[in-house]
């Protein structure tokens, strides 16, 4: 089974949505997935923050148009994509411990239900080394 490793640095709505779509594709393909949530990304995984994510990484002046288009197209939220992917295939989500601390999360219970564990950077690099596909978002 193919292994996908994702470094999720971004915590913006557009890139989280892209990550969610990619995870869904990986789930349809029964891939084993490991997501390592880095610096900015960890803010989105703090418990209660999932619906507070509304900034864009690119074309930020078109935020309202972007959100409306997603809604009109009946696109799932980034959180729903992640949930779906976890239901369909083996997806593990690890928060970088430094990233968590930056946003006030130290323990596993400080993060949302998608989160499997807190990890260090060595584990991310080892996973990237062993994966068939590695992407950084």
């Amino acid at each position: 089974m193919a292994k996908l490793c994702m470094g999720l640095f971004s915590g913006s709505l557009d890139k989280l949505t892209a990550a969610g779509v990619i995870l869904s594709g990986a789930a349809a393909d029964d891939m084993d997935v490991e997501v390592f949530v880095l610096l900015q990304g960890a803010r989105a995984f703090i418990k209660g923050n999932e619906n507070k994510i509304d900034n864009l990484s690119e074309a930020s002046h078109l935020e309202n148009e972007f959100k409306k288009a997603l809604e009109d197209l009946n696109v799932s939220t980034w959180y729903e994509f992640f949930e779906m992917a976890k239901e369909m295939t083996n997806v593990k989500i690890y928060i970088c411990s430094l990233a968590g601390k930056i946003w006030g999360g130290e323990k596993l219970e400080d993060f949302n239900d998608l989160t499997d564990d807190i990890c260090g950077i060595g584990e991310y690099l080892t996973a990237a080394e062993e994966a068939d596909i590695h992407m950084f978002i």
Partner: protein
Amino acid sequence: MTLEELINLTVNKSVDARGTACPGPLLEAKKAIGTLGSGEIMEVLSADEGTKRDIPKWANKKGHEYLGTVEESGFFKIYLKKG
């Protein structure tokens, strides 16, 4: 398979994914094919252009047979046989 053969296929399962954009149809197809037995036929209704290439490629990779696509007005039907 000819167009006529595709149209006359008896399908065991029909999935209507016309209300969703990519990756919706692929996810619907993936969920539904698990409920079928080997050799059974599934049709996926989609209005998302990307699906036309996406689902056949996925099916071949997963060991299912892509039988063909039938164009309708404003959407299309993709036929698969479970491997």
